[in-house]
């Protein structure tokens, strides 16, 4: 099989409708002045029995939203799309529900000084941009967006910059991931660009390797 042509690659990209492109996003912010927000806080385990990825918006920070004055419950934060949080956001359980809940609520990016490893991996797989900036920059973003809830925060993946009022901050991201997000390619669409390589690999796999079909059948068990 030949390598996909440029045209075919473009079609593959078109078909990859699963993930929204991320180029430059501008929106209002929710300043979440908390550190060590683990995934249990982002979405408590009792909401994780669902077999769906959507419908989790109401479960986001469920235990905090009943507290007085929680940031997401303030009327001026309605429609916020950028979450600005403290150190170690998304630690703990690997549940991908945490990412789904944030996206379902409307967030496109989370800015924090440091993220839990697995959460960060999950978020970038799903097109939720997690941006690492120094703690002082987070502090400044908190101040700016608290003083003016309509202040717009721009997360620019093309120039790898976060901007808000007079603040301009560069950030870094793995090049593979950046390319994928910019193209709106989900990881699968991205991998399928190399479909020819996969097919070529498959053609050379050792023939003795096991297959699951037809499945091994044992004689019926007589159970005592």
């Amino acid at each position: 099989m030949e390598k996909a042509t440029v045209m075919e690659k473009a079609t593959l990209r078109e078909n990859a409708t699963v993930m929204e492109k991320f180029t430059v996003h501008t929106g209002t912010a929710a300043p979440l002045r908390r550190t060590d927000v683990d995934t249990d806080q982002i979405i408590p385990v009792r909401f994780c029995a669902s077999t769906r990825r959507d419908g989790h918006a109401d479960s986001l920070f469920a235990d905090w939203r009943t507290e007085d004055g929680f940031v997401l419950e303030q009327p001026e934060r309605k429609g916020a799309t950028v979450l600005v949080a403290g150190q170690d956001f998304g630690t703990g359980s690997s549940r991908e529900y945490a990412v789904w809940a944030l996206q379902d609520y409307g967030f496109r990016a989370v800015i924090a000084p440091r993220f839990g490893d697995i959460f960060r991996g999950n978020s970038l797989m799903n097109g939720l941009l997690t941006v690492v900036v120094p703690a002082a920059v987070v502090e400044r973003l908190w101040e700016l967006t608290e003083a003016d809830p309509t202040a717009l925060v721009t997360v620019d993946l093309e120039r790898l910059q976060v901007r808000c009022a007079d603040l301009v901050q560069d950030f870094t991201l793995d090049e593979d991931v950046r390319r994928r997000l910019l193209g709106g390619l989900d990881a699968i669409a991205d991998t399928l660009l190399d479909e020819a390589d996969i097919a070529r690999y498959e053609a050379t796999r050792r023939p003795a390797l096991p297959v699951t079909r037809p499945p091994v059948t044992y004689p019926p068990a007589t159970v005592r």
Partner: protein
Amino acid sequence: MGTTLAQKAWDAHVVRRASGGGKDDLLYVDLQLLHEVNTPQAFDRLRAAGRTVRRPDLTVGTEDHNTPTLALDRVIKDREGRRQAELMRSNCAEFGIPLHRFGDPGQGIVHVIAPELGLVRPGMTIVCCDSHTTTLGAFGALAFGIGASQVEHVLATQTLPMRPLKTMAVNVEGTLPEGVSAKDLVLALIAQIGTAGGQGHIIEYRGAGVRALSMEARMTLCNMSVEAGSRAGMVAPDETTFAYLERCPGMPQGEEWDAEVAYWRSLASDADARFDREVTIDARELSPYVSWGTNPAQSVPLAGQVPAAADFGTAAERAAAERALTYMDLKPGTALRDVSVDTVFLGSCTNSRIEDLRAAADVLRGRKVADGLHMMIVPGSARVRLQAVEEGLDRVFAEAGADFRVGAGCSMCAALNEDRLLPGQRAASTNNRNFEGRQGRGSRTHIVSPAVAAATAVTGRLSSPADL
């Protein structure tokens, strides 16, 4: 410089090297295992994107986490659990993936059935949306747990972008004394290196102490690699591996078999291979181990005592110990042998294979489970149950007053089915995690080996067979 087993398995699966300035290799996956939890979302997204399963013939499913154990014709009581099982069945049917349903002779805990079905061989890459996939590294396979999005990725492409991992050698010197098992070895190791000791690494277990272990014991060892924070655990294939595989269904025959064995032999780490980290543990000094706290690293010899928070070096460790002591309701200085339990659970992907059941039966033969204590034995697979019955172990268990369940599965390991401890109940359990609430809300778990589990069932207190 030579290469390690892990690197050889990795290199043999690189579809394309890291590209575009990123750091990920694209790895081919030889086998994806599925169970009913965590998979419905992956199939939904696959459908939404108009994609299909690339290699249903390299994919297999089972039902294990929610399945009942009391009878094979029982339905899953929990509504969400039943829904997960129903979706598993319809998704597998739709995409042509073979599924070993509850009640089928091939059904059981995903990590137990995979080798039984002859699907696990040295040098393979194996993934499953389950952290204890590390179990299968016992065969010299590169086997690791993945997240829900990655399941979808493998279904659609049969590959996974992966950043290279570091390697760590665990050298086990000498062989285990009589009455000490692989479970004790791995608990001692985790107590030594901590729950993050293997983070970012693939462990290779090496040395005389590992070579002497059976395949079942190696699976126990590799199973708990993830409790040391490592991504995978591996044992180089040897005569023990080949002898085990020869008995599995679907193996190549004649010359083809010989060629496979020759290839498998070549996978062993080269003599001059370098590991990023090396740890040594002396098997000859080990005795039965038991956990006292709420993570597997909080383990000590059964002959020892419950430690005090002040015994620990760092503030974080002291705080964790303090919390664990309160949760476990234990006083520092208490001899572990004085701790009474009300339940004994023999099961889970760590210790529910035939050898584990035999070890327990050897202790229980001619003895009785203590009054008022419930000993529950849940086979890892339908095959294991069948073999236990053929060997007459069911009668040994019945005569001892133990409760040998009919249905195979995870059962009380994760307490997602009906089997669970009540708040405050204390169990000696052969599973792998003693986290708060792991075996039911408010449950207290002491991780032990099968032999210690059986001896504990007889005395009602944490005991080893030597204490009887």
